[in-house]
């Protein structure tokens, strides 16, 4: 596995646990008053599991496993690292904005960072989705 994939997958596993922890506490609070009602963090729970866990894992695995260019290279690594950073910055910004009662602008900024990250990843991965010998 390349270094970027290792970082993305490890962070995806961390996000899975954080997302499950928030989800578990929210579900527990529906069944018991002993659990803290963390409904304000529901958006972060969703963001961690959809973007942090699923999307990050899928992009990390795609970067690792799609056919490489001649010479075994995976393309310029700089943009891919930048996209990975943007994705994580975006998910936390979009995830915490509702809990902070932050302006819609913050939520929009988070979503834009996520979208830009996926655009860069897609641009990187697009030419590598190809047939054998092409």
């Amino acid at each position, binding site marked *: 596995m390349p*270094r970027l994939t290792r970082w993305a*997958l490890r962070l995806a596993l961390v996000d*899975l646990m954080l997302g499950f922890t928030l989800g578990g506490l929210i579900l527990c609070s529906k069944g018991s008053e002993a659990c803290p009602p963390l409904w304000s963090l529901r958006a972060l729970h969703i963001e961690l599991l959809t973007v942090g866990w699923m999307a990050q*894992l899928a992009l990390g695995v795609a970067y690792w496993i799609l056919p490489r260019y001649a010479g075994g290279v995976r393309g310029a690594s700089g943009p891919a690292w930048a996209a990975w950073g943007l994705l994580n910055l975006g998910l936390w910004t979009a995830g915490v904005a509702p809990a902070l009662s932050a302006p819609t602008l913050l939520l929009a900024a988070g979503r834009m960072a996520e979208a830009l990250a996926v655009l860069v990843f897609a641009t990187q991965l697009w030419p590598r989705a190809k047939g054998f010998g092409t």
Partner: protein
Amino acid sequence: MPTLARWYIKTSLVWLLLALALGVALFLLPSDLPAAALVPVQIHAFVVGWITQLIFGVVYWMFPKASLERPRGSPSLALAAYVLLNGGLVLRAVGEPLGAFDLPSGPWLVASAAMQWLAGLAFVVNTWPRVKGP
């Protein structure tokens, strides 16, 4: 494909079918039935039962070997994750509607939350050493 990976993948397909069937049922059931109790069950059947479980199964099958002696890490941990994840989902599928009918649902939901959290932990602990370089 190892036996446990087949269980994960086949069970994920069952949850996908259940999630879609529940989506249809929400339209067909009497309108006085509290849909709010079934919507979270449907969403989690889809996102946890289908997508996350499919990922668990494919990761268990295809990620790099942990070691020559134990290529897929601990089979007991992987089996525990499978049992806890599905047990937790079933408990939630029972508990949420019970709560909607003012029947005692607390223990079901708290147990469900704990089981799914432990399933995530077992998966992460078993997968972490398999995220590694060449």
